[in-house]
């Protein structure tokens, strides 16, 4: 039994190590620092969203709207900053206000999903399917279906910066993961979200406010989507209304599942999700380097997801 628990906890780490080992044999460039940092930077945007998705899935829910929410928030932030730029001189203040607005928008959108799910009593899949369509459509509308360029001179800088050789978005992901890992394992909220995901009825009988616990998980993922979106928009200093965040929801869910969180809810791991996200990035990177057609990369990703879930099933 001890073995089983250990596998559940560390399975995704072991898999990641094996993957890295295999990749370093396949390509000599793989272990180059620059390459590793590239992978981490690429996965960090999805990774940050997946951290929130971990909580949603542990709570027995799902959020399909994260991708279009990211685009919508990105569009709002850039448009708002462009407007602010015309009234406020100091560009740093503009960025700070813009970011705060983005985070608030994320919390609000997440809360909207959470509200419809807990108070409206509509299935999470349906609610977020609906809001996915709404967010994307509004993004296209406010951006006239094109690209929204930022007129801020320094916004594009911090997203491409590195700090102590590690890119800013990677730092953000790691710090958030460390904090959320503590939230999951050491705070009351973490315990409650597991309880709600395992058995909602028991949680209710145990005087846990099931609705607010679930509501908060959607708000949390909204905030994290905002963080990711701000970083992503900063990287290009622009937002493509039709492309930004496309397919993020599936990649984030995949990272969570590959990371060892049960899709049925009740248990999961924050660092596992980080591992899952990195694994997906490593696979893409490796396939690129050995020259596999980019069209086939989806197939490999699919196989890895199915394989990971299959192994988890067997170990239960």
């Amino acid at each position, binding site marked *: *039994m001890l073995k089983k628990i250990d596998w559940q906890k560390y399975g995704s780490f072991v898999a990641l190590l094996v993957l890295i080992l295999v990749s370093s044999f396949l390509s000599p460039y793989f272990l180059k620092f620059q390459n590793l940092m590239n992978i981490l930077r690429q996965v960090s945007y999805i990774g940050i969203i997946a951290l929130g998705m971990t909580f949603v899935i542990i709570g027995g829910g799902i959020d399909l709207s994260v991708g279009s929410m990211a685009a919508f928030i990105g569009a709002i932030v850039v448009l708002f900053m462009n407007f602010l730029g015309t009234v406020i001189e100091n560009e740093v203040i503009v960025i700070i206000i813009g970011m705060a607005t983005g985070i608030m928008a994320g919390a609000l959108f997440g809360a909207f999903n959470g509200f419809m799910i807990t108070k409206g009593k509509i299935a999470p899949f349906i609610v977020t399917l609906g809001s996915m369509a709404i967010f994307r459509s509004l993004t296209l509308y406010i951006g006239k279906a094109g690209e929204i360029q930022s007129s801020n001179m320094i916004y594009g800088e911090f997203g491409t910066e590195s700090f102590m050789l590690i890119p800013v978005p990677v730092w953000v992901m790691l710090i958030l993961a460390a904090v959320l890992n503590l939230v999951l394992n*050491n*705070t*009351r*909220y973490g*315990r*409650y979200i*597991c*309880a709600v995901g*395992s*058995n909602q*009825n*028991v*949680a*209710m*009988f*145990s*005087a*846990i*406010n099931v609705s607010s616990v679930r509501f908060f998980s959607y708000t949390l993922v909204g905030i994290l989507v905002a963080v990711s979106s701000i970083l992503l928009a900063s990287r290009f200093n622009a937002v493509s209304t039709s492309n930004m965040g496309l397919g993020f929801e599936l990649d984030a869910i995949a990272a969570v599942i590959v990371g060892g969180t049960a899709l049925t809810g*009740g*248990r999961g791991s924050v660092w596992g999700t980080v591992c899952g996200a990195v694994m997906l990035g490593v696979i893409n990177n490796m396939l690129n380097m050995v020259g596999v057609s980019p069209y086939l990369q989806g197939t490999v990703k699919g196989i890895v997801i199915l394989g990971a879930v299959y192994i988890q099933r067997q170990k239960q």
Partner: protein
Amino acid sequence: MGNVILKVENISKSFSTVEVLHSLSFNVRYSEILGIIGENGAGKSTMMKILTGIYLKSSGDIIFEEQKIDLKKPIDAKKIGISIIPQEFNLIKDLTVCDNIFLGSELRKNRLLDKELMKKKTKEMLKVLEVDISPDEKIENLSGAEKQMVEISKALAFKSKILIMDEPTSVLTINEIKILFRLMKKLQKEGLTIIYISHKLKEVKEICDRVMILRDGYFVTEKKIDEITLEQMAESMVGRELSQVFPSKNKPSDEIIFEIKGLTIPGVIENVSFALRKGEVLGLGGLVGAGRTEVSEAIMGLRPVSGGEIMVKNKLISIKKPADAIKAEIGYLSEDRQGSGIITSFSVIHNITLVSLPSYSNNTVSWIDQKAELKASKKYQKIFNLKAPSLETHLEFLSGGNQQKVSMAKTLDTKPDVLILDEPTKGIDVSAKQEIYHFVNSLVKEGISCIFISSEMEELIGMCNRVVVMQDGRVTGILEDKDINEEEIMFYATGIREGGN
């Protein structure tokens, strides 16, 4: 009775390295009712799962009608004529009675379902069983007893020769049990062999021809039913003498600590009032469906009420959600252990502190003091004599009795003054039951007051200072002291008498 239909020889079963059945041998004779009794974890269910092809045996032989058989999957057992009615019904609630009965063995005509014929056969079968349900009724609209009849029909549709019944009466009312027993006798006369697994020794004594007792995976004894007394059965199950089953009752003080007045949920309970004294065990008796659980759920804020007052220590309180009840120092042990009591994928520790968690995380970031959690859990492990490999063990790996102890610990960890126990001994074995009785007794001695809901008469009689009897959502009588006996409770529970005390 007479010839042997099924011979089990030296059956052993191991899970990984742990042997749970040790070389079990026994015979089952044609058209007898064989009772199998034993505590939880004695190996009854494991043995039956081997006989029905759910588990594979590790060694030994099964000989059915003088032929050695090899059961690899459930359908193998069904094909030769061994069926089981599991404790948890195996029916699909969205399908009709007829669909369920023929599920997996549908009759066909020209490759299409022959619905007319199946319906006709279902009607015939239900008629034989003397139950009045339509073949087109959906399972979700049936009562527990009716579902059981459907399960029996399902087994009979498979032309079963041996029918295994696992705790068949746990969901039934007294009347329904009578009907079931009559039916069993009838089926027996028609040549069916029945293996009857139960905790309820009185029922075993009443219905079985022979009884076999298992303990810790070993065969203990086998006796004709009239050669063994209830006490002997209980003692061979536990392996020691059961001294006093019920502890001597505590004398409550006169102080009223908790009172409900006119509690009403439209269509469910009506104008329910009673008072609980400090240090008292107040029984809530009645038949299944009398509204006892609903009363406790209303008290706990799990059901909205349309009227009524709840007073704790002479103060009117408003309970809108379970947290309000916990705050008023009321604790509730739910009747449905797995459904609303414990989280099976949580460890012992995490279950114990599930309700009381705020008191372990009373700081701004609600950081949990895991050392304090562990300490508290150790305390309960000792008090309850909890048998678990470790406090980190998930509850799914514990026996029913130990799960119930954890559930109790969870309820107590909020330090309630008023404890509502809803069927606290349901589905657990004799010795765990006894431990729980003694524990409840020691709690009331410390000044905790307890509302004790039970469908077992002996428990109400043995444990309670007073018994509130309910029928159809109303209180029909409150019995005290020497008035608490089976007959009186039954009179009020069935509504023959009303308005006592």
